[in-house]
């Protein structure tokens, strides 16, 4: 079962774990990314492309399920405005074997950072607004999977 969602509503971690049908799988691995309130960050805004972002997530999900034997995969990305502490992204995979579930989570979060049409903009308490720059390390991590 593959579930992909791009949503402006808050991500409900517990509900997503339930939906994922946690009970039925041998091994599940997850990654949760949240807004960090560093340097007086007041708001993180995620810009996306209405159709292409979801299509990009779906393509990534299918690539992962072609590559590893997964019994379920959940990929939820929030877009729009969010506050420090809120969840930006949830990646959740299940498999009969732990190595596959863990590798798929790592692949998905790495590629998500370089392959999907999403852009972060930070607004700080002092009024500064800036678009987040791509990080070189992200590019390197993503290329490990090629």
């Amino acid at each position, binding site marked *: 079962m593959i579930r992909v969602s791009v949503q402006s509503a808050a991500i409900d971690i517990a509900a997503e774990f339930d939906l994922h049908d946690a009970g039925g799988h041998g091994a599940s691995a997850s990654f949760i*990314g949240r807004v960090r309130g560093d340097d007086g960050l007041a708001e993180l805004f*995620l*810009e*996306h*492309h209405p*159709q*292409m*972002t979801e*299509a*990009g997530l779906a393509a990534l999900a299918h690539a992962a399920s072609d590559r590893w034997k997964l019994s379920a995969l959940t990929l939820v*990305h929030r877009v729009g405005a969010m506050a420090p502490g809120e969840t*930006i*992204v949830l990646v959740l995979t299940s498999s009969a074997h732990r190595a596959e579930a863990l590798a798929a989570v790592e692949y998905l*979060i790495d590629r*998500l*950072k*370089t*392959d*999907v*049409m*999403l*852009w*972060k*903009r930070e607004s700080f308490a002092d009024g500064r607004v800036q*678009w*987040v*720059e*791509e990080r070189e390390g*992200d590019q390197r991590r993503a290329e490990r999977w090629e």
Partner: protein
Amino acid sequence: MALNIAYFSWVRERMGVAGEMVDLPADVGDLGALIAWLAARDGRGALAFAEPNRIRAAIDGSMTGSDAPLAGVGEVALFPPVTGG
């Protein structure tokens, strides 16, 4: 040739619009040429595309390189490197 272009992030802000339909000269055959043409067209284009190596592109939803041809394309998206996740 008529082409739809969508802009994102600071490319969108510098262009002042989220997208536009342009009438492309016949000699603008690939993405690299499109970016050069937009940079030369006016001040906002010059600002948005001053550093072509910081621009990424998708054609009809798929990320692609700057040598991708434009013939038969529905929508081109131009944007900085993505930063999701």
